[in-house]
């Protein structure tokens, strides 16, 4: 176990390093350096001293070559200094600490939702292959696969406003918007979040149902299942006892793909539903080429998926020692 943890940690560090380079490229790509963009966005009234400009340039080494710039950027980053957002005139870390919790508060429950829903459905669909419900789930699965999150969000807005006269979007309904915290307000927030979770979770669920169903079908066709059946084990006991346990590990290990997809979904859904996650922040940053903010958000989100995948990998190995280390 320990060598595995060590090996995975080294791998993770390398991955994080590559991600940081990609994030740095994102900063560098737009034409012009950021101090110039910064100055350009300042409104006429503000006065920036030459010294302040020079200090900024020096801090991020804008006059050095790219390698040095990267080095300065990453050391700053590791010390928690992610630069400033010239659009908001605040430090990036400040903005992130305001927005990131909601991103997590939506993504993490969604991840649990996805697996909690799709594994039982996957099992049912595999065991009752070609049953009417299996077809229904397949159909739902295909639609979940084909309807992008943001379209789903739009459809939700349309359906609720059209047929329920309700209002989707925002973290709070209008009557709670400015109200002090109360049980009602918390419930209202949870309700709005759960709509987002439902939207984001659906496509993840669709994909995972397919994997679970396929894996379990493979497993059920193995000879040992026949043997156990011949021994007269009850059908459900038999299926739950071994095939499901074998099939579940690879399904859970799809988290490396699922997690980034869920975060992606959270961010774009949040822009449609107007939830104050890092999503709308990122979109604004990108629209105004506020690249330090944009790249920091991308970097932090990616690190979160890497860590999430790492933790789930370790849990998997811990729970199922048969997995090859």
């Amino acid at each position, binding site marked *: 176990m320990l060598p595995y943890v060590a090996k995975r940690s080294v791998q993770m560090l390398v991955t994080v390093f590559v991600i940081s380079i990609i994030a740095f490229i994102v900063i560098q790509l737009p034409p012009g350096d950021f101090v110039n963009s910064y100055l350009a966005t300042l409104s006429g009234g503000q006065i920036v001293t030459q010294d302040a400009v020079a200090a900024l340039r020096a801090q991020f080494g804008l006059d050095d070559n790219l390698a040095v710039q990267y080095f300065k950027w990453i050391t700053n980053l590791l010390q928690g200094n992610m630069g400033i957002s010239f659009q908001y005139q605040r430090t990036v870390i400040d903005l992130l600490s305001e927005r990131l919790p909601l991103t997590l508060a939506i993504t993490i429950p969604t991840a649990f939702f996805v697996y909690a829903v799709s594994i039982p459905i996957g099992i049912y669909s595999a065991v009752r292959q070609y049953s009417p419900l299996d077809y229904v789930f397949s159909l739902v699965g*295909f639609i979940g696969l*084909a309807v992008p999150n943001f*379209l789903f969000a739009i459809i939700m807005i349309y359906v609720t406003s059209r047929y329920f006269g309700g209002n989707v979007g925002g973290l709070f309904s209008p009557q709670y918007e400015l109200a002090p915290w109360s049980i009602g307000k918390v419930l209202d927030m949870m309700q709005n979040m759960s709509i987002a979770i439902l939207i984001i979770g659906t496509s993840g669920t669709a994909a995972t149902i397919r994997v679970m169903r396929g894996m379990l079908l493979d497993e059920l066709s193995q000879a040992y299942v026949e043997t156990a059946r011949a021994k007269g084990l009850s059908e459900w006991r038999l299926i739950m006892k071994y095939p499901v346990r074998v099939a579940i590990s690879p399904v859970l290990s799809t988290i490396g793909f699922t997690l*980034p997809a869920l975060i992606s979904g959270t961010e774009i859904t949040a*822009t449609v539903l107007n939830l104050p996650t890092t999503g709308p922040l990122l979109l604004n940053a990108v629209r105004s*080429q506020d690249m330090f903010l944009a790249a920091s*958000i991308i970097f932090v989100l*990616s690190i979160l998926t890497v860590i999430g995948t790492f933790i789930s990998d370790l849990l998997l190995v811990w729970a199922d020692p048969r997995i090859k280390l």
Partner: protein
Amino acid sequence: MTQMVDERVANMPPPADAAEGVSNRIISPTRLMWWKFKKHKLAVASGIFLILAYLATIFAGFVSPYDPASRSNNLYAPPQGIHFKDAEGNFHLQPFVYGYEMTRDLDTLRPVYTTDTDEIYPLRLFVQGESYRLFGLFDADIHLFGVEDGYVHLAGTDDFGRDMLSRLVYGAQISLSVGIISVLLSLVLGLVIGGISGLYGGMIDSFIQRVIEAIIAIPTIPLWLGLAAAVPRDWPPVYQYFAILAVLSLISWTSTARVARGRFLALREQDFVTAAKVYGASQPRIIRKHLVPNLMSYVIVTLTLAVPNIIIGETALSFLGVGLKPPTVSWGVLLQEAQSVQIVQFYPWIWIGPALCVILVVLAFNFVGDGARDAADPFSR
């Protein structure tokens, strides 16, 4: 195992051209794959649908009744229904649409359209209408269908009174081609990088693997957003189109590369590759003649399944306003209208049209991909 293969070959339906007889039944692996694919009815139907959709984009000017940019006085008009029976109950052999009658909701000032059953515009095939350029080469003015006088808006109109159906067809030109071209780009990238990774192994391989892992770990939409930010806003539409293409491909090559690498590794160990080495075939020749042909079917499957992601990517970026921009027409650009709650609620046809197009095409590619995946290995169950 071999026995099974032979039996299966024997049990296969005879090829369509069996009538020729003389060919004494040479069944190529490609044909085996085709037979296997054909068994998936949904995949075949989806394939036909996609072929028609792509044909429509090639002949966009002909298929669409209007120019996508030409405005009319019918702003925010809902789709017209096609009728055979008029208000008096008379049956018309030729289908027709009714004209609009517009009033304004006095509270909201929104236009409200009702059908004017007195105005009957029969639909005709191959009518003369607005002129367009076919393939950017020939001027033409014959449209697949249309009305001789009056107007036809089968998918409604938008805020400028532009015909949504025409805009959808022209939008498909961009949205569908983005999918294909960008997937071809990622095919090249993925094959080359995955091939290098699989062939050389060692440090190069582990480095490439880490890069791929890193790209997979980065949430796609945020990364696309970050890269798209670099596309200058004042670029001409064509440049922007290619820039967005590049942005989309920069990420989607990873799945191709993974598949290519995996297959390369597996194929490298096959005895026929060893044999080629022993009789002195050069490395490039082995790659060309032995490796690539045997992994192409798998790569094509991954590509088919990658197209929907690219199409969704373009749509999402344009929807968010950082992809393609008007006056370019793509499904994503059309969906930008849905940023307005007004339009979402009161003029749903403006966004449901492009949304439906995206969903149908994505579904179709998924069905084709599923069928193809099954056919990719013609010698398996």
